[in-house]
């Protein structure tokens, strides 16, 4: 499989953009993140072993990139939430995604954050999320359960109900 960044962009750019829109919540940051994702793919093109579908590989890189972006650029509560679901395919609405990513996952470790994103935002099963992370489904289930416990205190009850 070719890892020509421009070729991959033509095929998967919209998928990566949709992913970044949902996680970052605004168009400008999402567009920046998409470029970073494909630049990273280009830089690491020799490391790709072809054991994953390119879409899975890109989804993983995009998720990490956005998570890093969220860390470096904290949103303030008063920042408006853009309605990215008009393009999106998330299982949560944009406000719920922001609650989850800007508040609820604060203080969680990186792996748990990724479990939460894959499971709640993307709607993956525990097994599917585990596959993204090289973990078993049971390990994901355990992390999600721990997260629920800790997040209950930080989030409105109706939100935790919804997820």
């Amino acid at each position, binding site marked *: 499989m070719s890892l020509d*960044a421009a070729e991959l962009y033509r095929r998967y750019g919209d998928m990566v953009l949709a992913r970044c829109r949902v996680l970052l919540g605004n168009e400008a940051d999402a567009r920046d993140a*998409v470029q970073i994702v494909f630049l990273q793919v280009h*830089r690491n093109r020799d490391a790709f072993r072809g054991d994953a579908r390119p879409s899975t590989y890109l989804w993983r890189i995009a998720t990490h990139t956005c998570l890093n972006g969220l860390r470096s650029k904290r949103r303030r509560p008063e920042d408006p939430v853009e309605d990215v679901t008009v393009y999106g395919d998330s299982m949560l609405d944009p406000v719920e995604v922001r609650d989850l990513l800007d508040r609820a996952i604060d203080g969680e470790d990186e792996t748990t954050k990724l479990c939460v994103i894959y499971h709640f935002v993307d*709607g993956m099963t525990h097994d599917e999320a585990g596959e993204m992370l090289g973990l078993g489904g049971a390990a994901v289930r355990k992390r999600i359960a721990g997260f629920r416990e800790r997040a209950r205190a930080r989030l409105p009850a109706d939100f935790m109900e919804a997820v």
Partner: protein
Amino acid sequence: MSHPSALALHQYRLDELDADERAAVKTHCSTCERCASRLGAQQAARTAFVAEDVPSAIERLAKPANGPWLQLFAGATPLLALAAALLLAVLSPNDSGVRTKGTLPDVELWVGTSEGPRALRPEETLGEGAVVQVLYDTNGARHAVLAGRDSSGRVEVYGELPVHDTLTPSPFGITLDASHGKQEFYVVTSDAPLTAHDVEQALTSGRADLQVRSVAVQKR
């Protein structure tokens, strides 16, 4: 099955699922209104996306500038850091140089450091692996091209730059290689479209109808 994940929907749309996975998603979407609409949203986004151009920073990765010195800089962090720093830095415009005709573009060279990006200092030399980025302001010209010349005197035309009337980082940074000597960068502007030949002429024999501004870095 439960609602397919966003990724599974993309893979379904891209025809990348195994036969049984594919059948499961298809059956689910035929009965689940919500997932049918999620899939519809993906397809609509796809239609909008294919009408867009590939961003030049990505397009360039497939066709790297020729010549041994320039490698397109693919490390995204310094590039972003540069862009972010620009938002914060108050940049003073360059003193006006010798104006031939029209207004010259402004050009600066910035370097990434462990403390963050900063403008290159006068007389500063840089070693292998340093990351530099050209910042430019086309000052009202309608077309701009970035070119370079290494110590051997060879001119390379890297490509067209988007025109901007504020000091803007070029769409990519550049990692220095191990070769020595002076590396110059040129921003050539014009109101008419520029060919590589125009640019080469401007840099070698001079062209009164084109505006040229340069910055240089000394490689140790």
